[in-house]
């Protein structure tokens, strides 16, 4: 089976089924925003949502993650996590799936990161395709992430009365087989899917004023652009943009001691290149001074450096950095300013 179909009335039955298989995380409403949470009641799951405050990264690259346990007297180390648990991410947008693909490349790159890979191994991804824009902040079309591009086990598309589900892995197939309410998709369903995709083309338009290869090229030329000064002037160095980014993975390590001051745990915690001590060494030299340079670095880590290294853009187009920015720094605006500057010259 390549495509399956599920009537919307049976969605909660399926969620109940998935919940029994593994820990199930899905989007739900929290005040006026959305978050990924473990599903207790199927009714809480909300599939019409704008990108959650934090991307599902918190499940496969936790904000604080134990690396190992230690004791100094005698010198001993031990594994901190005995077992990694199976879990399902449900209702993930295509932009966030692109984010997972990015982190896959990073942590698979030698020397590989066993913590990430162990978690990833236990993860099942069930995506949902967006049929309309979440809000004005997203730039997923320019990044090509408004449509599914792999990286998931199952992908659901809302066809009105029912969902059509693309089966992309054996792991995914196991979650839709043997259930009387999930059937193989009919030809009529497939026709409907095509029409939905066709209609989508009229809604989703590139948000940058130039195609992506031009964006890459502009970054090659914009190291000294005045745009960075402007962004730096507005930035308050809070680090929100990096915390909510699905492809930011910089971290710090932290030791915590028990009251005995002997035993403890070393963890890694999210860190942000926007913090002023991020590149400072003990001798006092700060190798990335100024908010302008630090913001520039963030942008280059999305549009230039990873393209050179992995042939992959690390901006997924989710729009979170713009949505969360206290100083109204807009990613679309910044990139377009760089592009416009080039046109003027």
């Amino acid at each position: 089976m390549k495509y399956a179909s599920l009537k919307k009335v049976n969605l909660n039955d399926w969620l109940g089924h998935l919940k029994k298989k593994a820990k199930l995380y899905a989007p739900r409403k929290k005040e006026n925003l959305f978050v990924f949470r473990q599903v207790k009641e199927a009714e809480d799951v909300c599939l019409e949502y704008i990108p959650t405050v934090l991307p599902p990264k918190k499940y496969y690259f936790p904000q604080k993650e134990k690396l190992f346990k230690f004791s100094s007297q005698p010198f001993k180390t031990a594994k901190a996590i005995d077992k990694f648990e199976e879990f399902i991410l449900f209702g993930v947008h295509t932009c966030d799936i692109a984010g997972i693909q990015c982190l896959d490349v990073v942590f698979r790159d030698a020397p590989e990161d066993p913590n990430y890979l162990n978690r990833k191994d236990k993860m099942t991804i069930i995506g949902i395709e967006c049929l309309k824009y979440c809000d004005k902040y997203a730039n997923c079309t320019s990044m090509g992430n408004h449509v599914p591009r792999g990286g998931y086990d199952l992908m659901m598309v809302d066809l009105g009365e029912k969902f059509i589900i693309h089966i992309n892995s054996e792991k995914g197939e196991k979650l839709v087989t043997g259930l009387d309410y999930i059937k193989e998709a009919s030809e009529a369903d497939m026709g409907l899917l095509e029409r939905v995709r066709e209609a989508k083309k009229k809604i989703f338009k590139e948000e940058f004023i130039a195609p992506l290869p031009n964006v890459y090229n502009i970054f090659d030329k914009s190291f000294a652009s005045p745009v960075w000064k402007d962004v730096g002037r507005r930035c308050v160095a809070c680090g929100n943009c990096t915390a909510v980014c699905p492809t930011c993975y910089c971290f710090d390590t932290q030791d915590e001691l028990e009251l005995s001051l002997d035993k403890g745990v070393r963890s890694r915690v999210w860190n942000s290149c926007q913090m002023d001590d991020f590149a400072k060494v003990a001798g006092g030299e700060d190798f990335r001074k100024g908010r302008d340079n630090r913001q520039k670095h963030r942008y280059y880590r999305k549009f230039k450096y990873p393209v050179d290294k992995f042939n992959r853009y690390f901006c997924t187009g989710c729009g979170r950095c713009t949505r969360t920015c206290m100083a109204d720094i807009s990613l679309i605006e910044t990139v377009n300013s760089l592009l416009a500057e080039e046109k003027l010259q």
Partner: protein
Amino acid sequence: MLEREILLEKMRTTPYLPMKAKIIEAQMVTDKEKFFRIQLENKINLGHIPGQFVMVSIFGFGEAPISVCSSPSDKGYFELTVRSAGVFTDRLHKMGKGDEIGIRGPFGKGFPIDNMFGYDVMIVAGGLGIVPLRSLIRYIMHNRNDFGNVQILLGCRSPRELLFEEETKEWMKRSEIKFNCTVDRADPDWKGNVGLITTLIPGVDINPTRTYGVVVGPPIMYKFVIVKLLEKKIPDHQIIVSLERRMRCGLGKCGHCQIEGVYVCQSGPVFTYSDLKKFKGECHEKAV
């Protein structure tokens, strides 16, 4: 070779887990720097290349990247020289013979010792830069016939800050290497040169195409020394530097050591001047 494989396997499966190591010798060598001789558990050799670094762990205090200052030809142990400059290094300074610490590594790319085979070597060390360079110098001494003429230029702020005093005295005596030393500020007993390290470079006699210029020192020093080496007509790819950066993982992940798209902990800390020239503006050490 087997030991190297044990280390690599360890890195692959548990890259964050430090190995147990014991300090077998420790002494203050200046007011601010302490020297440590360290033995890994089961006395396995670190198997590093001169210029590589290790992550030193003190549980409860964290981890820091430290250059190895012994040569891989010094077997059964390795050595570090550490300046007390923060919470972690202050704590390390309080440790002594018999104390246990954690070690991960060796990490990064070392000096291109195989490429330097048969070439003349001109070493320029400023301040603490002599620490990683001592590893290279000792390696050259132990394999002296593999290299052409060797000269060492050493600079530091004052005679009191001169590291490896006994060894430098010996280097001065040895006829097969030339050794020159200068201090920024002399004291009454100082009989050597006074002035910045750059003042020593014009006077040295080299055959530039046959010479590797290896420079390590404080960030501010590089651009001035590199200019002098370029004036001497040493080709870009034969000017070698080692860069200091903040590091947390050593695995090319945590992001702290990045210069533009390059992770110093994996692609460095040793770079050629040709590498530095590719940076667009984030590399402080690049000569303009």
